[in-house]
């Protein structure tokens, strides 16, 4: 009787323990970053290091969000004269939001329309396009980036957020296309036919019947697209050259320039940069498996 309940319970406890250890190990870098960002300067370098700060402070977050100059202060000997990365943080954040939303909007609109067309009409090349697109999404961005840069030079779009929007369309469109195509293919065509027979136009059917049904696919594709655009460093680094127009990823790497690295500030910037992705990720959780089923994981 005892062994009947005892061993399964022990097994369960061991399993939970193992899960906790693995999860802690995986999340440790993130926990440590969060912890550092909340520590006052004196505690960041304390030995032994503390996982949970003895005294928490939000000064790093305040400095970033208000653009206050505190970057070189801890060195003691007066302030730096030039602009400091902290002053640009909110600006870069807004830039990142703009290019992320802009490119995602274009990719989603273009790929949704295309996927509808590919799955509902018959014409030459319609079965080749999704596979062509899949191939496009395997090509690494290092190959796209310089030809696109020269194109932007010719269009006089360098150092312009629009160039990044186009650049991110180039890397997100292929897999949005693939995902939307796979998703549209799985939507039964009968509902649309019924609506068409009832006298609705193609456009009405698309707007009122197809789009609502395709919404989970659209959400999943948008989230993947936003993650890719938000996280990109390469395009921002090559296309943009003024501090005002940088995105977060490239801008925050600049925190390393200069002799003194303010780790608390840097970790706070890292946390703030990750938060939008964390929110998206929570929204994504439900769609993750559906999205994967459609072959939509980019890495």
């Amino acid at each position: 009787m005892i062994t009947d309940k005892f061993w399964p319970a022990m097994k369960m406890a061991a399993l939970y323990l193992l899960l906790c250890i693995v999860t802690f190990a995986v999340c440790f870098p993130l926990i440590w970053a969060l912890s550092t960002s909340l520590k006052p300067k004196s505690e960041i370098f304390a030995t032994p290091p503390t996982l949970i700060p003895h005294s928490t402070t939000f000064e790093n977050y305040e400095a970033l969000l208000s653009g206050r100059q505190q970057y070189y202060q801890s060195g003691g000997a007066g302030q730096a004269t030039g602009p400091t990365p902290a002053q640009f943080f909110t600006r870069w954040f807004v830039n990142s939001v703009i290019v992320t939303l802009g490119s995602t909007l274009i990719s989603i609109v273009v790929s949704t329309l295309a996927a509808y067309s590919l799955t509902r009409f018959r014409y030459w090349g319609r079965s080749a396009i999704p596979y062509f697109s899949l191939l496009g999404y395997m090509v690494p961005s290092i190959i796209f980036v310089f030809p696109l840069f020269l194109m932007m030079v010719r269009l006089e779009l360098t150092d312009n957020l629009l160039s990044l929007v186009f650049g991110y369309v180039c890397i997100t469109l292929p897999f949005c296309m693939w995902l939307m195509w796979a998703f549209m293919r799985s939507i039964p065509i009968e509902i649309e036919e019924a609506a068409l027979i009832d006298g609705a136009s193609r456009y009405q059917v698309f707007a009122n019947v197809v789009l609502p049904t395709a919404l989970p696919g659209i959400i999943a594709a948008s989230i993947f697209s936003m993650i890719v655009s938000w996280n990109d460093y390469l395009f921002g680094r090559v296309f943009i050259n003024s501090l005002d127009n940088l995105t977060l990823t490239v801008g925050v790497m600049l925190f390393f320039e200069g002799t003194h690295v303010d780790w608390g500030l840097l970790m706070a910037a890292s946390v703030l940069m990750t938060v939008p992705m964390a929110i998206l990720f929570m929204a994504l959780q439900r769609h993750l498996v559906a999205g994967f089923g459609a072959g939509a994981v980019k890495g």
Partner: protein
Amino acid sequence: MRRLDFLQSDRFVGLLFIAPFVVTAIVFMVYPIAEAVRMAFFSYNPLRPDLVSYVGLNNFEFIFSDPLFWSSFSQGTIWTLLSILFQTIFGVGIALLLHRKLFGMAIFRGLLLFPYIVPTVVIALIWRWIFNPEIGVINYSLQSVGLISEPIYWLSTPTMAMASTIMLNVWKYTPFVVICVLARLQAVPLELYDAAKVDGAGAFRRFLDVTLPQLREVLIVVIVFRTIWTFNKFEEIYLLTKGGPGTSTFNLAVYSFEQSMASLRLGVGAATGVVMMIMLMIGSVVYLRVAGFGNEEKST
């Protein structure tokens, strides 16, 4: 009226809806790739656009006789193989752990998949902080446990820098393997396990005889995909080590970037890109064979 009829006609709607994609794909995908291939045959300095000249295969001769190209190639290969090895082992392990219906599993799953969406810049910054030789928590912990007596210079010695970038890569992309394996595990018929239990197979034997063969297909696809992607990764290396110390963590993507950006030899960078694309195509052919896409298309 005739024009309206034309608009209502299905064929027109179909072409109208595909048109933006065709235009965007030609401008932002086909053209840049074609341009990259063209650039590989030209001498191209972005500061002197007036001096562009056709140089034939010179750029390819340059890279094939450049020892740095070959060391980038072999370092990239080692980086890829070790990354994939650890990603696969950890990925399958974590997926097996998560593949149970337990209370609170959604939280564990969420936390274990989270690294996948953390920006590479953020991971690189955190890595530089926790692996800092003097003030980093990793060295402190290892020293206080007594595993090491001297601080390890994680990012400034060639071997350790390579190990650090591999760790970063494994940390970020293991969730990809977990997601794929987890999705497949959910489709393994439970009867197979019952049958194995009846035959008296222990947990480990059941894993070897039932789980692993079932995972074979998905693992092959995942490994091919990840190999192609990992081999071409740029940010995961560049942001952490800039390819250094020296050139000890260069891979072909970093080599191509440095040729284009630092040496301003866009033609040489493009030629490297072309070589990478050829390898990618070989990888893709392998993938298409493995996944059997050709067959699927015939059946639909």
